[in-house]
């Protein structure tokens, strides 16, 4: 089997000191293979978001190693780390974090342009990404001209745009109605079927069920819940 796209080994994360010390993550091992979609469930405060942030180099573990597409994050310079974050990893956050002075399309194309893509190329990819999330022709609108659900879809398009190896999503369907939420999960699935990997945090079992593998964080530790690869046939269910 090829090297996992995300490899987390013996990850520990501690907040505070002395009596206030909290072990958010304890000795967590988690791999996400190429093409695999993994969901992390668990109650609020179980460390799901902390684990996701560590996977995406947005937070550092207290102990342990993370490697993304074969690069040990601990060995990378700040510049290399920033590049990995921009190029290899796509993020979809609970908060939209859209820049209010940029249009929807510019919000999506900006990171691509920062990586050296021409404005025209980046703009074209942004339009494709917008249409994938059902926002055809809305690229020229500013965030304050969009509803909450539309802003979230722009944020999703920004996370999924371009050729990313690892997609990290934190409650990506948060403010969306059920049908739109499902279309986002379908997008994540399609990306995985095209070879990307996805790690998603969700507290909704119905959303977690879109993943190939569902794990749960409990008391800072990972428990495997269920593995059902979407790639295998399922004809005998009924």
């Amino acid at each position, binding site marked *: 089997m090829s090297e996992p796209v995300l490899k987390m080994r013996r990850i520990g994360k501690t907040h505070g000191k002395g009596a206030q010390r909290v072990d958010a993550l304890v000795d967590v091992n988690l791999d996400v293979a190429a093409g695999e979609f993994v969901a992390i469930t668990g109650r609020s405060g179980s460390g799901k978001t902390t684990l996701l942030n560590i996977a995406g180099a947005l937070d550092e573990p207290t102990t342990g190693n993370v490697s993304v597409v074969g690069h040990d994050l601990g060995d990378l310079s700040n510049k290399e780390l920033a590049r990995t974050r921009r190029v290899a990893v796509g993020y979809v956050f609970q908060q939209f974090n859209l820049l209010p002075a940029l249009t929807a399309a510019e919000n999506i194309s900006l990171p691509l342009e920062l990586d050296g893509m021409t404005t025209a190329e980046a703009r074209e990819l942004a339009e494709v990404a917008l249409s994938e999330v059902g926002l055809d022709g809305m690229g020229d609108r500013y965030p304050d001209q969009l509803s909450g659900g539309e802003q979230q879809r722009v944020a999703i398009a920004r996370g999924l745009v371009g050729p990313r190896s690892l997609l990290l999503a934190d409650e990506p369907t948060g403010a969306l109605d059920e049908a739109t939420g499902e279309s986002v999960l379908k997008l994540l699935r399609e990306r995985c079927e095209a070879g990307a990997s996805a790690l998603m945090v969700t507290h909704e079992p119905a959303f977690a069920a879109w993943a190939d593998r569902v794990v749960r964080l409990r008391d800072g530790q990972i428990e495997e819940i269920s593995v059902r690869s979407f790639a295998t046939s*399922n004809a005998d269910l009924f």
Partner: protein
Amino acid sequence: MGIKEGLLALLADGPRHGYQLKVDLETATADAIPVNVGQVYSTLQRLERDGLVSKGGVDDEGRDVYEITAPGGDVLRDWLNSPVDLAAAGRDEISMKVLIAIFTGGLDPKAVIEGQRTATMGLLQDLTRFRAEEEDADVAWHLHLDRLIYSAEAELKWLDRVEERVR
């Protein structure tokens, strides 16, 4: 839903012979209620005895065609208009198993909860995949899958709640 109410509903839609009733019942409910033709005929006999349906002649192939009667229409309307009393529904085996495990100290409720969670999440994954693959399937089948998906989801949430309470 019993076969009885299903047959009355189909006959209210129009006269049918026994085999047509079997086929239409399975189609309408996305095979959620598999029936054999023998069950259909024995139910029709009881409905006829009780005056809820009557024979309305024979079709081209000599098969008895049934019609709904006015009292049959009343029974059907009563059934459709009464919400299902979930509290009185059949015993729920998962609930019993988990609650008994909690009540009796010798058993391990966590193992019961974890085993059930894995099974139910696996089912939910299968159902989700099935629905995604069968986008063009008929409405009855989709709605039936939705129903199963919502039940599995509710069960997983309940298991989480139980676990929080017994930890």
